[in-house]
């Protein structure tokens, strides 16, 4: 039987290593040619690794969460015939681009997007069913002892009954204790009288009728995949960028009237407008006057790159976690175009079908938690950008117009800037200009 070694492919962009996020096979599994064996993730992309041969999996070179160097052996497959030859798949860049399916992501921006929905496993493709993700890292039973010592329970018993002597069982029944909840320290996982005493002493009787009970369970979740990328990016952004966050109140009553009118009059093929396309247009207009905020700062090289193009990243919550699809060349798009592109990208990001270029290359980012409420956020800059604009909830508030209180629709804008390259004055000027545009929305559409 021959042996075929699949190595970690070079996924491009000068990447030297990638994280293994998913195995689709295990040792002993038969594999067919083109069957997906594993998924690895780099900074930018999740790459599925297919089998170039038909055979049987002999060896797996990494565990989920391991960082594997490019060209390191990943899988060995036994193949029929071929004598004792050891073949290997030196998947170069050209070969790899044909062989691998790529999905890309950029992780960035507001930590307040992480509302627990995101999985710890970096599963970029929603369709990729993974037992790993469904299986909790710890079995449901067998809580830890106070010392933290793990109890070595026997494998699930086919008799489906906890292993305990009749006297222990009788005590448990009398005490209303479900022995399946008790860890056995005896031979073969047998529950002893001492185990029962300890369980009772700890007060963790799940059968107790009262609703309040101590929960001493702990769960370890390995931070892998997309969650790890998010964590790393957030650390870099907060450790290297001194943030200045500036919050301003914006009267969007007129904008809301305009938006409502445009939505009423829209053509069937046009999308429903939200506030974001208007904000994007306002950003574009402001940037044309104040280009310093539409920039990326390479602090190692000490170079600020100001961009003519306005590629606006839109922080988006997906089942896997936070991703930032990018509306490219917003400066060339009208309000309706921006709206259509937003809808398309959000859907692509949520379903994991966004392309590499749709998930990278932003020059400024918008984060919107408006629908959730909250009066202020402290957005974290999408490194290496220098500015991020956060949208808060629109609320009707009483406003003094000099004569009386009148109800106005008020929205807070919470924006953060890299204080190394954007001074407070410039930040304030930027936001004030946006305010002017949004409060008098006709200005957004006036040329020049």
């Amino acid at each position, binding site marked *: 039987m021959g042996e075929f070694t699949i190595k970690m492919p070079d996924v491009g962009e000068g990447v030297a290593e990638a994280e293994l996020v998913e195995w689709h096979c295990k040792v002993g599994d038969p594999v067919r040619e083109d069957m997906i064996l594993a998924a690895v993730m780099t900074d930018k992309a999740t790459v599925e690794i297919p089998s170039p041969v038909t055979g049987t999996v002999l060896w797996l070179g990494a565990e989920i969460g391991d960082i594997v160097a490019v060209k390191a052996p990943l899988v060995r497959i036994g193949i029929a015939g071929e004598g004792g030859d050891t073949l290997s798949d030196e998947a170069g860049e050209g070969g790899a681009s044909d062989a691998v399916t790529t999905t890309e992501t950029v992780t960035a921006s507001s930590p307040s997007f992480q509302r627990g929905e995101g999985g710890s496993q970096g599963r970029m493709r929603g369709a990729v069913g993974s037992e790993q993700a469904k299986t909790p890292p710890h079995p449901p039973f067998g809580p830890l002892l106070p010392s933290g010592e793990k109890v070595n329970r026997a494998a699930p018993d086919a*008799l489906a009954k906890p292993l305990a*002597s009749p006297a222990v069982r009788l005590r448990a029944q009398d005490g209303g204790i479900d022995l399946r909840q008790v860890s056995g320290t005896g*031979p*073969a996982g047998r529950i002893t009288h001492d185990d029962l005493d300890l369980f009772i002493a700890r007060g963790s009787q799940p059968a107790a009728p009262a609703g309040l009970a101590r929960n001493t369970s702990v769960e370890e979740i390995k931070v892998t995949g997309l969650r790890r990328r998010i964590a790393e990016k957030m650390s870099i952004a907060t450790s290297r960028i001194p943030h200045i966050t500036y919050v301003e109140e914006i009267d969007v009553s007129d904008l809301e009237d305009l938006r409502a009118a445009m939505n009423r009059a829209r053509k069937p093929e046009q999308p429903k407008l939200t506030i974001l396309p208007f904000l994007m247009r306002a950003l574009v207009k402001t940037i044309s006057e104040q280009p310093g905020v539409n920039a990326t700062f390479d602090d190692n090289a000490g170079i600020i790159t100001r961009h003519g193009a306005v590629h606006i990243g839109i922080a988006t919550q997906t089942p896997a976690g936070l991703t930032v699809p990018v509306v490219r060349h917003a400066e060339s798009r009208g309000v309706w175009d921006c709206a259509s592109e937003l809808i398309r990208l959000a859907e692509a990001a949520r379903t994991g079908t966004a392309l590499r270029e749709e998930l990278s290359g932003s020059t400024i980012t918008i984060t919107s938690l408006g629908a959730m409420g909250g009066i202020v956020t402290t957005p974290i800059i999408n490194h290496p950008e220098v500015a991020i604009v956060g949208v808060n909830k629109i609320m009707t508030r009483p406003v003094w117009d000099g004569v009386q209180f009148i109800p106005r629709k008020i929205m807070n804008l919470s924006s953060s800037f890299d204080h190394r390259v954007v001074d407070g004055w410039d930040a304030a000027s930027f936001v004030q200009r946006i305010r002017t545009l949004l409060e008098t929305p006709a200005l957004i559409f006036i040329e020049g």
Partner: protein
Amino acid sequence: MKEIVCKLLVIGAGPGGYICAIRAGQLGVDTVIVEAVKAGGTCLNIGCIPSKALIHAAEEFEKVRHMAGGESPLGISVEAPKLNLAATVAWKDGIVGRLNSGVLGLLRKAKVKIVHGRAKFRDGKTVEVETETGMQVIRAEAVVIATGSQPVELPSLPFGGPVISSTEALSLPAVPQKLVVVGGGYIGLELGTAFAKMGSAVTVVEAARQILPQYDADLVRPVSKRLGELGVRVLTEAKAKGLSGDGGALVIETVDGKEQSLPADKVLVTVGRKPRTEGWGLDELDLARAGHFLLIDDQCRTSMRGVYAIGDITGEPMLAHRAMAQGEMVAEIVAGKKRAWDKRCIPAVCFTDPEIVTAGLSPDEARAQGHDIRIGQFPFSANGRAMTMLAEDGFVRVVARTDTNLVLGLQAVGAGVSELSSAFALAIEMGARLEDIAATVHAHPTRSEGLQEAAMKALGHALHI
């Protein structure tokens, strides 16, 4: 007649019912028990106890007869013995009678009210009993159905005349010259063997490929061998068709499809037992069923609130000790204790020659449940006590998990191994590992050493083989 109102009503005073009533009485529950025939049920009157009495008498007789044949290596010689079956049956009836009155005494001691008569449900809380003195109505908060089981009758061989069930076989006035046993299960073989030892020419007709079909071939082999020595003819894969025209023979269809006539003075039909679901008003209750049996949960509750069922009416294994354990549990539940069925095993004994005892999982059952197992087997031919008793056939076998050495099952076949049932069941209930059994000092010289040696064998270090 005045209505009786009580907390617990038990219908049927077999081993399940009377244990339930005694335990309930001990716990201060106001209890009434109804029995249509005799206290003790099938087990005590026409089952376990009388059959064991007859089997013992037959065994003793056969031993002496064997010695009289001049073949005894023990050096004993006796004159040809004679058996007076009527006297044997009378002795057996004496034992049954003593136990009958013993059960009644225990019930009285527990302050259980005993009502004689046939009970019939009016509704889930009310039962009518036809007694000698008229209709007695009993109302109870909880009712336990313990009506037991009865022999299955073959349509082609209805009971009556020469066709008898185990009940009649236990009270025959004389040993039949030619006995044909239809059904090679444990009841047929126990009784067939006893009659063979008492002098009958016995033929066993079994439809399956093997006698004792519920046991594996290794356990059955010593029994088959002994049947051969006793001159019992065993016809497997043969079907009983009916009596011959003159009633003096049983017509069977053999494995090759031919009809054959087996001359018989008596035809003993032992093709199984069925739950007794008729005659007590099951229709009034419309309880959920599991096949022919009543459906129960792990607290022996039926589908009707306050109505429990225990024993043979609730399914296999139809064994007295299962019914007793259920009865005890239900009594405690009715008394307000928290109880649920949590037994790991119900040992079973087959009083053939030699005896078979099993507890827990057989090797095949363990594998079928997905266990990776190791097996240790120790033959009695290497056991000193077995040699001194002239009974070296058989073995002890242990089945354990490979990963933890947890004992999953224990089996034995051999003379007197029924008494190993307690050690077997205790080991499994206690969650013993092979090491527990191997490291327990077993008295020498006894057959029980075979258990220790089997465990050692499974661990790879048997000492005597």
